[in-house]
């Protein structure tokens, strides 16, 4: 590695570390709420911890607890969780070309940690470097996994004593992190078009179809619009 490459890597890792601070806060706040919600929903400490450790997907965990509270059958809970998390397929597909040279067991390990936030941090890190940085990818994954699981336990044990996140403005931390990372990935007109079209398609789908399908629809349609923008610009030159 040349001196310039090493300098670029250090700068990108520093930025990753700074960006991850907001994600820690997010994971701690939402993880604590999940732990508290799960306890209120009748889950034991072990069961609550199992959802955070084995499922490790915030929105789907809340949905599962909500369905358990109304005594929904396990099959419907599992199906809903799988549908909610189908968007993770897109995340993995997006990262796969950069990770192809890594050993299979490493890719299998990274896949376990691939949440919304880990994907967002990893994508931004890859975009800065133009390649995969394995240490950065592990860091992005564990930057969510560790605080999320610890906060889940804390929330179950002491959640009732904590303030409502809305009173201190932290209820917007999740959309703020997603929007911030999305905007950070915009490097050209195609990405901007994908962001705008994906967001608009998702909102339209959430209003007309349902919220769980909306993200998938936005995530699939947005890049198509981005490609059309690129091809039109090429055609007009």
């Amino acid at each position, binding site marked *: 590695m040349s001196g310039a490459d090493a300098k670029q890597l250090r700068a990108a890792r520093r930025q990753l570390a700074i960006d991850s601070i907001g994600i820690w806060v997010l994971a701690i706040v939402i993880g604590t709420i999940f732990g508290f919600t799960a306890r209120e929903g009748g889950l034991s400490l072990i069961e609550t911890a199992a959802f955070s450790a084995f499922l490790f997907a915030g929105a789907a965990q809340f949905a599962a607890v909500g369905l358990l509270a109304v005594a929904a059958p396990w099959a419907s809970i599992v199906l809903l969780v*799988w549908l909610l998390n189908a968007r993770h*397929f897109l995340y993995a597909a997006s990262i796969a*070309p950069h990770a*192809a040279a890594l050993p299979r067991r490493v890719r299998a390990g990274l896949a376990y940690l691939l949440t919304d936030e880990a*994907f967002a941090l990893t994508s931004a890190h890859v975009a800065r470097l133009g390649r995969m940085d394995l240490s950065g990818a592990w860091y992005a994954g564990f930057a969510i996994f560790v605080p999320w699981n610890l906060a889940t336990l804390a929330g179950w044990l002491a959640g009732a004593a904590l303030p409502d996140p809305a009173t201190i403005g932290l209820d917007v931390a999740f959309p703020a992190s997603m929007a*911030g990372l999305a905007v950070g990935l915009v490097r050209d007109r195609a990405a901007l078009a*994908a962001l705008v079209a994906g967001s608009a398609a998702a909102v339209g789908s959430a209003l007309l179809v349902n919220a769980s399908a909306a993200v998938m629809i936005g995530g699939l349609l947005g890049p198509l619009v981005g490609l059309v923008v690129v091809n039109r610009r090429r055609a007009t030159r």
Partner: protein
Amino acid sequence: MIDPLRSDLVPLAILAGIGTYAARALPLLATGADRLPAPVLAYLRLIGPAVLGAIAAVNVFVDDASLRLGPEAVAVVVGALIGRWRDSLLVGMAATVLAVLLLRATIAA
């Protein structure tokens, strides 16, 4: 009183996790991801901004299957733009939190 060590729902968590892991792992474990045609790679590169933007937009613009244009939407857009300007997610998130608190206080006053 809930028994903290009860484990009846642990198999459900594992079942739910298996499908989730499959969605996360299958594209990463498939071979040849680096030899995909250029248009496919271009498409995959654009998934990040599209899907993250979609998550944020649904969170702040949709409430109970209705369109919502509240202080949260304004704060998130403003915070994202400030974060982009300062090239820092942390600054953007802090700006969002401050903006939403200010807007809520203004509306309540």
